[in-house]
């Protein structure tokens, strides 16, 4: 620890990210990962970072509705897209208040019903991935459901109940599509047992 050499500070960029429908201005260096910007700058800590090299999928968010590893994208390159994080999933038209009061989209609801999570760390990445998948494939088979979640790592569940959750979510989505009015009250199917 000898004499101090002062270096020029890093250039910062003023950008606006549209996250969960809300424009969020922030100032970041060009190298700031989108995952870090969401978590640290915007305080949206629901997006988790499990590997920082795009393999585990915990940090998966939706970019214009498509799943994307937020640890593989720079915040400054995400300004032109609609970003959805786990915190925004419940804003979907087919989300409903559940027994605990929180709004949940069909995938979130299914994870709760099917014990689709244990520690919850990888869960946001699965929820976003499956939400996007079911928008494209509303009625998967068990095999397709397994394939759909085979890009994300989970160390707790052995995937059994995650696969089950995909199938259950498809059912819930179908049920909600069939509802006469899209805004329901408390969903009675979600009682504690």
């Amino acid at each position, binding site marked *: *620890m000898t004499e101090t050499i002062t270096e020029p500070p890093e250039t910062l960029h003023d950008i606006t990210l549209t996250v969960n429908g809300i424009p969020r201005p922030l100032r970041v260096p060009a190298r700031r990962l989108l995952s870090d910007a969401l978590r640290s700058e915007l305080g949206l800590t629901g997006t988790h970072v499990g590997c920082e090299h795009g*393999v585990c999928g915990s940090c998966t968010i939706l970019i214009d509705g498509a799943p994307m590893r937020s640890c593989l994208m720079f915040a400054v390159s995400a300004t032109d897209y609609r970003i959805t994080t786990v915190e925004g999933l419940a804003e979907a038209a087919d989300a409903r208040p559940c027994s605990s009061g929180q709004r949940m989209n069909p995938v979130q609801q299914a994870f709760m019903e099917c014990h689709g999570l244990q520690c919850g*760390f990888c869960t946001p990445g699965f929820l976003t991935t499956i939400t996007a998948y079911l928008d494209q494939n509303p009625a998967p088979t068990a095999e397709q459901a397994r394939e759909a979640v085979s890009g994300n790592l989970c160390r*707790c569940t052995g995937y059994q109940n995650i696969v089950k959750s995909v199938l259950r979510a498809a059912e819930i989505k179908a049920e909600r599509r069939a509802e006469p009015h899209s805004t329901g009250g408390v969903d009675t199917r979600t009682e504690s047992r």
Partner: protein
Amino acid sequence: MTTRMFGAPIKRKEDPRLITGGGRYVDDLGREAWVAAFVRAPHAHARITGIDADDAVGLDGVIGIYTHEDLTGTIGERLPQLIPHPSLTHPVTTHPLVAHVVKHVGQPVVMVVATDRYVAEDACGRITVSYEQLPPVVGLQASREAKKLVHPDVPGNIAAHMIQSFGDVGAELATAPHTLHLDLEIERSASMPMEGRGVYAQWNAQEQHLTLWSSTQTTTGVRAAVAATLGLPLVKVDCIAPDVGGGFGVKIMHPYPEEVLIPWAARELNHDIKWTEDRREHFISSAHERAQLHEATIGFDDEGRLLGMDVKFWHDNGAYTPYGIITPIITSTQMLGPYKPRAYRCEFFSLYTNTVIVLPYRGAGRPQGVFVMERAMDAIADHLGLDRTIVRSRNFILPEEMPYAFGLLFQDGRPLTYDSGDFPASLTKLKALVGWDDFAEYRAEAEAEGRRVGLGIGCYVEGTGVGPYEGGHVVVEPSGRVNVATGLTTQGQGHQTAFAQIVADELGVPIDDVHVTTGDTRRMGYAVGTFASRAAVMSGSAVALAARNVRAKALRIAADALEVAETDLDIIDGVIQVKGAPATSIPLGMVSILSNPLRYSFDEASKAATQFTGNVDFDRPPVDPGQEPGLEGRDFYSPTQAAFANGMHAAIVETDPVTAEIKILRYCVIHDCGRMINPMIVEGQVHGGVAQGVGGALYERMAYDDAGQLLNASFMDFLMPYASEVPHVETDHLETPSPLNPLGVKGAGEAGCIPVSAVIASAIEDAEGFPITAMPISPVQLWELRRRHAAGEIPSLKTRHSNAERH
């Protein structure tokens, strides 16, 4: 309560929060904190000759740079030897930052604190550490040969040497009608939770108080270690495990270097500081497990009964032994499984290597022990041409022989005595579930199609719920809200739900009113931790006992208030009422108010407890002698020994005749963890365990090269199973209650992964017709074994197992 909560598949209370982004993991806390990053050793064995940080000091945002020389006082001393043992004759632990010689790649050498992680890592990149390389010891063979030493003062690289035995093994082997020798190997793997480790420290200078959040499996352990290291009174340190993203054993180690360095720096700099482990750091600095070499000699009679078993094994403990020799002790005792050899001897050597430290990973030495015993059972069946399940059942300890004492000491230093289990019943269930007796027919059909399939089996017994103790605290608020605290921690096991189920039943309150806190020293200062499948047994029992105390107190106060006998009262849905006359009642919340005589009222309800209301008996003090104010209770559960769970697994695998690809077609589990608090959660634990077992059997290994570099330290290269690699898991349960605890429960956390390597080896062997002696096994390795088998280097089995099993 009309509905019993215990035993019901209640949806988890923690899920709505975790599913909606409301989780609070360590890295989610402390947005204003400064952050730390580490310069880690790039060599497996090297002497530090210089550290040059000049280029890093001036970097904008760098706050402090620290080496071992800066750590004065207790923080500069070696970390504690957590579990001493008489057989651990040469324990070695390390300093928080390496003092002179690095002993494995990944050891922290320099700590940088900066305003931002990016800057901290920039600074790390500008620090140059010079090394004089020393010859590394990598792998058990090299360590056993001991041509090079990991620690100069540890001869033969031997940290520990231990022998346990019963019966006269020498005599039994000498007179046994048949003897076989087996060489068996399991490679290194790791817990690998999705969330790495993390520490966040807040130093309050005014209060001289440290609050610490750690992604740990033991907050009381971390708290005590940090208080001792920083020279703080225990009362001035608190440790909290917030949401923890998986543990599986690796987070039971404490303190990791970072767990003392971060709080130390927070106090030095008087600023919040946080460190979040990245994935590469986790691979090269957080604990591994599993690597062991085994040699077993078995003697048996014509019926396949095991007469004598003599096992010697070598356990790779990595570069240091902070957690002692728990893992090899477990191997040496739990190898016995559900069987009763007449004589048994197990000798092990725990050896140093220049690799990451080793401590229990889910299963904790059992997967290796079970592998040895189950390979032995299959070898006996092959040798005698018997059905593998018949050989096993002839060696089973029978239900009427419980409790069964082996005369060995278990990992908790207490006698290895099985308390419960019905192994014949489990085996019957397993055979029915997998269709054991129909397999030969299935195989014939498959072979007719040119497919190669095999059936495998593995049985285990798991000592769960080891002591010394856990505590429970239950308090009812005037609102009727019930707060429950237990000190052990949670990493996804659903404790907030399971413990609430127990308390709801014991107290007679709706489960929605019960709120459970785990792993927070502010709420429960006495605890041990979450490991050894002990949470349900230990804390489950403790909160049950605490709730019973609260119930007794509530009934006493209510009986007084209602002027009836306590025995006439019951608690239904949070209301104490007279049996048969429910109109005479008092809510538990009101009892809570009455339990706490007040001078000052704070709302309408609390007026009832003030001094100038109601009928006062002037002969009695407001708080009766021997009583305490408040409707609360505390109790501890401390068992004399472990509760022994068990299980049996079977699998059908298919091996590709050309590519040697291995596919699990079916995976069946019979699981006995005694009474299940929440079958949905138990099932989930089994699923997760099996998946980790599949990883350990077919995919996961720590690929160290001869220089001690971990070549696959990323999720790209360390093959953790995705959904595409994990088969559908079929389960069935047997519930033989443990007589040892008030709930009749046994642990379930580790069970799923314990026999998987044994089961898959058994199935591949059955498919291929030659012995499988080392796991994990890759297609490349299987292909090589086929080549060697074809060349006559590996003998064929005497009988294809499932042909002997045709009925």
